[in-house]
């Protein structure tokens, strides 16, 4: 097993074994990050692949200001944001031209069934994910990274390239928004 420094050197030298180790070591975390944000396994796999392609392409410019894992999280968050924005654009277009864009109705109305949630909690978790889906972009990402993914505020701040106070504020606002969104469901 290569150390992080050896891994970086190996990646810079386009070493296939180093790349394999990178994917095996960080693949699950990268995939879960994008999956939790995107709430779509297909899109998440696509995004996770793009993260590793980006790493492969730009490892030469990696200055090691942060750990490799933090850099990966940053790329993963950016990729997830890109996908969310593209999805929104697609949905807007679909609202205008529904006949011309079949098959792109997704996400907003589909229920996300996270494979790692226990059966008795699935319904509640699905409601929560749907409510998270309705949050503004930054709140959604900060809340997901901390409350779903289980990152610390410091790790989330590094991944989102924001200050810790900004993350705290985003999570606080997300909680309040979720409280409002979940209230009607409680009364049903």
């Amino acid at each position, binding site marked *: 097993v290569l150390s992080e420094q050896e891994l970086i050197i190996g990646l810079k030298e386009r070493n296939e074994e180093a790349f394999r180790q990178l994917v095996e070591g960080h693949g699950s975390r990268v995939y*879960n990050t994008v999956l939790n944000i995107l709430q779509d396994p297909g899109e998440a796999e696509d995004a996770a*692949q793009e993260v590793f392609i980006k790493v492969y392409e730009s490892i030469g410019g990696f200055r090691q200001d942060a750990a490799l894992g933090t850099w990966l999280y940053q790329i993963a968050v950016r990729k997830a944001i890109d996908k969310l924005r593209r999805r929104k654009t697609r949905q807007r277009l679909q609202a205008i031209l529904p006949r011309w864009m079949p098959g792109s109705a997704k996400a907003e109305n589909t229920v996300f069934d996270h494979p*790692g949630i226990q059966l008795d*909690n699935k319904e*509640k978790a699905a409601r*929560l994910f749907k409510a998270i889906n309705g949050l503004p972009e930054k709140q959604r990402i900060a809340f997901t990274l901390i409350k779903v993914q289980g990152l610390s505020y410091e790790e989330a701040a590094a991944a989102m390239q924001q200050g810790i106070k900004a993350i705290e504020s985003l999570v*606080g606002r997300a909680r309040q928004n*979720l*409280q409002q969104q979940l209230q009607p469901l409680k009364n049903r």
Partner: protein
Amino acid sequence: MQRNVHTPLTDEYLQALGDIRPAELPPFFLTRLQARMARERLPARWRWQPALALGALALALVLNTVALLQQQRQPQKATQQGGAFENFASDFDLYSTSNY
């Protein structure tokens, strides 16, 4: 502090995620990733191919044109040469078959 916002309902729903396990990486993720990387590297090569094809086509056209021009010139030269010989022969009466 925003960390201590009072949101009991959110907290209640968050408990559903309390024992969440990370999702497993899709099977053959690395294989599919490597295949995609190989596929996406292709376009870089393909980008050169139209240029190469056009270059080869242009070269073939130039060679064909040169060959055609040369073919057209050669009969002219031959006829010019032929004419000169004929003139020379007639001037010196070389076509005469009479025996002395």
